[in-house]
Structures are given as structure tokens and as C-alpha cells.
């Protein structure tokens, strides 16, 4: 166990977030059981008031989840000096089995939280709250994810021992060890590049279709999810090396450092925005409901789709920039 202010903040913050998610869950269960929009009974009115609280709590939680995701990576980076061989966050996270699962779960939770907020926003625009049950069912899943995230994160920090020999990002992402990460780094840059640009172009093309016809949102959501994953792979495989100007440096975390002008922040923020709004577009496309819902979905969907496309476009531009304007060329 290592204790420093950041770890206290992260663990304490997660516990608090989970506590609030559990509180919301208790309300969600009551809503799932007793909700009756036609009734004007005091019980129903009380439930309707509770929905304001849940909306507010999750709007905050969305922000805090994103914040804690970055803080987590930053803390791993900050601690790398404590572990022999760890050169950056990548090494610190590999110290025990909880590091990377925590990171992945935090990312997934953030995405889910974003989708929930989108669904909630949609539902709140229909006077008969048509999505009340699906959205509170989704909330159960979200709470489980948050609880699990807290568990993993606590496990990670509790399992830290300074001076443990660990691989640094030089070896973790060097492409000659047998791990998923190294597998990504070892992917042929050329093929990854083609796959990346293809999925982006395809997503943008389908996005235009959604914008023009209002149809195909489900396909767009699916593509957006895929493009997000492919983009992350591309980031490790060839985008990062271009920014580092080093063919062997694939680390996805060092991009967040001052040495690289904090380029990681706009990269990740644009990608996450694109992913969340894209998934939101898809989810809205899959929802079927009464006329009130049909009335609000198209305009919302267009806006989300536009956001998602803009996010992917910005990410792609930033990824392409050093290839076009940099001196560094990734060897074949």
C-alpha cells in the first residue's frame, strides 16, 4: 500500500461516487417498482422529484468519472519513480494485475455514464417519460460498473509495493514481449493505418447519411464504437510514435506529458467525445417508443451525430498532423 494525496483523493472520491451511485440505485429500484406517470398520488410525485436528484447526481458523476480517469493515469505517471524499471504510467500500471483492468473499467464506465446522461436527457424532453424503465435498468448496470471500478482501483493501490521490479513502457510496448499491449505495438503500422483511416472515413460517410436522411443511426453507433477502439489501437501502433518521433516508443500515456505539449488531452478528449456521442446516437436509434419520443429523437440524434463526427474529424486531423508536417517518418 502506498499512500499519497492523489491516492487518497482517488480512493476517497471513488468511494463517495459509489456511495452516491448506490443511493441512486435504491431510488432506481423504487422507481422501477412503483412508477405510474398517470397517477397524481403523493408517492408518484415524490418519485418524480427524485428523478431530478438522480439526473443531477449523474451529471456530476459523469464529469468526475472523466476527471478521475485522467487523475488515475497521472497518478500512475507520478509514481513511476517508485518502481524499478517503470519509466512512466505504463510501467506503474503493470505493477500488479489490477492496474490495467482499472484503467479499462474506468474508461468503459465513463462511456456508459455518458450514454446514460444522453438517454436521460432525451427522456426528460418527453412529457410521458417513455424511457424511465430502460434508463433506470441501465443505471443498475452503471452502478455495478462503478462499484467494480472502485474495487479494482482500491485493489491496485493496496497491492502497490515500492521497488517491485516491473516492465517499463520501453519493454511493455516494445513489441517483443507476449502481451496484448505489445501485440498492439507490434501490429504492422501500415495495415493499422489503413484500417484506421478506412473506419474513420466509413463512419463519417454513414454520419452524413444519418444527418441527411435521419436513418442508419444504429449502424453509425456501431461504427463509432468500432472506430473508437480502432483509434485507440492506432494511437498505440503508429500515432504515438509520430508524436514521440521514435519508432519504438508506443506509450499511450506519455502523450499527456508536458514534453509533448499535453497533446494527449485534446486527442483523448476528442476521441472520447466522439465515442460517447456516437454510441449515444446509436442507442437513440435503437430506442422505440411513443410518439412523444419519436418527436424529440431526430433532432437530438442529428446533433449527437454531428458532435461525434466532429470529434472523429478533429482526432484524425491531430493524428495526421505530425505525419504530414513532421520530419519523422515511421520506417516500413
Amino acid at each position, binding site marked *: 500500500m502506498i*499512500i499519497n494525496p492523489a491516492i487518497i483523493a482517488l480512493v476517497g*472520491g471513488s468511494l*463517495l461516487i459509489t456511495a452516491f451511485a448506490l443511493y441512486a440505485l435504491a431510488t432506481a429500484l423504487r422507481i422501477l417498482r412503483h412508477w405510474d406517470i398517470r397517477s397524481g398520488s403523493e408517492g408518484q410525485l415524490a418519485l418524480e422529484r427524485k428523478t431530478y436528484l438522480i439526473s443531477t447526481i449523474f451529471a*456530476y458523476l459523469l464529469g468526475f468519472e472523466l476527471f478521475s480517469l485522467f487523475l488515475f493515469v497521472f497518478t500512475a505517471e507520478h509514481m513511476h*519513480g517508485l518502481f524499478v524499471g517503470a519509466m512512466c504510467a505504463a510501467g506503474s500500471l503493470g505493477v500488479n494485475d489490477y492496474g490495467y483492468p482499472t484503467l479499462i473499467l474506468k474508461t468503459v464506465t465513463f462511456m456508459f455514464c455518458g450514454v446514460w446522461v444522453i438517454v436521460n436527457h432525451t427522456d426528460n424532453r418527453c412529457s410521458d417519460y417513455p424511457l424511465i424503465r430502460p434508463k433506470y435498468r441501465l443505471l443498475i448496470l452503471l452502478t455495478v460498473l462503478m462499484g467494480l471500478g472502485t474495487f479494482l482501483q482500491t485493489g491496485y493501490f493496496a497491492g502497490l509495493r515500492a521497488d517491485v521490479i516491473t516492465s517499463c513502457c520501453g519493454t511493455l510496448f516494445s513489441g517483443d514481449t507476449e502481451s496484448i499491449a505489445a501485440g498492439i505495438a507490434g501490429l504492422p503500422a501500415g495495415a493499422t493505418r489503413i484500417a484506421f483511416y478506412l473506419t474513420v472515413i466509413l463512419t463519417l460517410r454513414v454520419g452524413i447519411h444519418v444527418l441527411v436522411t435521419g436513418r442508419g443511426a444504429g449502424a453509425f453507433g456501431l461504427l463509432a464504437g468500432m472506430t473508437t477502439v480502432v483509434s485507440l489501437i492506432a494511437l498505440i501502433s503508429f500515432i504515438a510514435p509520430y508524436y514521440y518521433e521514435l519508432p519504438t516508443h508506443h506509450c499511450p500515456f506519455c502523450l499527456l506529458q508536458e514534453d509533448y505539449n499535453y497533446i494527449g488531452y485534446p486527442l483523448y478528449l476528442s476521441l472520447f467525445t466522439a465515442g460517447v456521442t456516437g454510441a449515444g446516437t446509436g442507442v437513440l436509434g435503437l430506442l422505440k417508443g411513443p410518439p412523444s419520443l419519436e418527436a424529440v429523437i431526430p433532432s437530438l440524434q442529428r446533433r449527437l451525430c454531428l458532435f461525434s463526427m466532429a470529434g472523429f474529424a478533429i482526432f484524425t486531423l491531430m493524428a495526421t498532423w505530425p505525419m504530414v508536417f513532421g520530419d519523422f517518418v515511421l520506417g516500413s
Partner: protein
Amino acid sequence: MKWIERQRAFMDYTLSSLWRRKLRNLALLMVYTLVIFLLSSVIFFTDALRKEAAAVLEAGPEMIVQRTVGGRHSLIPVAYAERIERIRGASSVRPRLWGYYYHQASRTNYTILVPETFSGPDDTVQTGGGVLRTWGALWDGRMYFRTHDGNSLFLLPTSAMSDGADLVTADLILMSEPTFRKISGVPEGHATDLVVRVRNERERPTVAEKIVRELPDTRPILREEIARTYAAIFDWRAGYVVVLLGSAVLAFFIFAWDKATGLSAEEKTEIGILKGIGWDTSDVLMMKFWEGAVVSVSAFALGAITGYVHVYFASASLFEHALKGWSILYPKFTLRPQVSAYQLAVLFFLTVVPYTLLTVVPTWKVAVTDPDAVMRR
């Protein structure tokens, strides 16, 4: 545009509402600021120490070899240097002379050191930034030293070192080798420790191993090990102090919760009126969000700035002893001001996030006041 106009209107109302209850809000703001001040001081201070230590080590030798006798650090024969030099990978070995000097008049401990090259004559010394300030009276411009065998020695301070990390040079006195031996009593043929240079980073552990095998009474220490230990200690200290401050922080959160729960009757009436004249629950929540944001941002800015001033311009006088952890006889030193986004992010997550979450429920409770309550009054 509409959205912006709405937020602007809520902001307007929030500011005027905060201003109307300035005394009440000032109390909250002050306690909030104090908590952030305390935490930011801890974070800034330990980070600065950590960085200073890292800077010192960066310039320091890659490996030090000490001799131990009875498990304690002892003087090392200079002859050991030749035996180490024969080990493959060790490129150069240099004996180092350093120690502490306790000056009775100022009741302060100073570090005395023989640098690799000392340019001045034997009766001069070079002093660090804090030395002359604390030393006390000079005799005819000279510093009085008492040698190990009880004699007096007057040395002329020539120049003050100003470059490098203040933390290390603050109490440092540089002198020539004969002068050092006179004052400290380290006999000829012996040194405090040996500095070993190893070019290849990866070979260092191997070289260290070979040294121990060759000279079993020595203890090689790698620079990375020291750095790691320092980093761990500073981190741990900061964490520990934050835990200690935990009760204060908790008290603040309870205070904030209580403030948010126990709104004055006047304020409750006011929200009731707003609900009655057509504000939605979410409008009141939005207005309250801005209120929280204004309070948090002000407290955060004030607290972080005062913490910054406290650490870098007042030498963290409130708890330097708890965190610095070296001799309390240590002279004053100032840290190089630096602040990072990471420190601020940690601070934000420690304070603003819990504050915001904890005030959500009480705020909501007021916001859901029945709109028709205003008619039943």
C-alpha cells in the same frame, strides 16, 4: 444562445443572492479556503522537496561506496579506491570528504565538504546561501571554527554559492582538504566515502555486486535507490499529513453539509417564491450549481494562492518540521516556486469534488419545494 442567456440570468441571480447573504457565505468561504490552504500547502511543499531532492541527486554521483563497521557508517580507507577501480565497468573512483560541523554560537549544524576542485587558499571557505545569515558575528571578517582537537581556526568566507538547489547549498560550507581534516579530524588515508562512476546504466547493479564481493565491509548505494526512497518518503509523508488533516477536512464537509441543509427560513421562502413564479426544480438546481461553483472556485483560488505563498515565500513555516524531517537546527531555505496541473487536480479532487457531491442532496431537498407551497403560506 437561449442556453447562454439562461445561464447568465441564473448567474446574475446567484451573485446577487450570495452578496445579500455575504456574512453567512463569508464564513463558509473562509473555512473552505482554510481547508484548501492546508491541503495545498502540504501538496506544494512535499512536491517541491521531492523535486529539490531529485535535482540534487541528478547532479550527484551514480554510486557511493561506504564502509560499515559494526553496522554503522565508518571512514573508508582511500586504498579501497584502487581495488574498486580494477573492477570492470567502474570507470573512475574518487574519495569524498564531507561531514557536519556544529557551530556553538548559532546552535546550528552545517555541512562541510571538500569539493572536487577547491580553488581558494587553505584559509578560505565558500559558503551557501543560508550560512552567513545564521552564523552570527564574524571576527575581523573571518569565521571562527573549532577544530576536532580543540584549537581555533579563523577562515575567510570568500564567495557565496548561489546556483543549484537551495535545499542543499543552504547550509553548505566548502573548504580545502587540509582545512577539512583539521576541523573534522578525518585522518590522512581515509575518506568519508567513495564516489564510483559507472558509465553504463545497466551495469551498475552488477558493479555494485562485485564491489561487495571484493570488499565485504562496504555498502554501495545506487543513486536510483536513493531517489526512489526519497520519492517514497515524501509521498508517504504527504499522504500521512493529509490523513492527519483528514479530521479537519471531514469537519469542514460536515460544516458544509450542515450549511446546505440548514438553510435559513428566509432562503427557503425565497426558493419557494421562485418555484411559485415559474422556476422549475432544475432551474433552482442550476442556480445552486452556479452558487456552489462560485464559492468553490473562489475558495480554491484563494486557498491555492495562499498555500503557494505560504510554501514558497514563507518557507511553509506552519509545518516545515513535520514534512522536512531533517534536523530542526537546519538553517532557513527557500524553495523554487513551481506548481503543476497535477497538484491542482489532486487538490481539486480532494476538496471540490466531495464538497459538490455532499451538497447535492440538501440542495435538491430545497429545490423540490412544492410550487403551490407559496400559496398556502
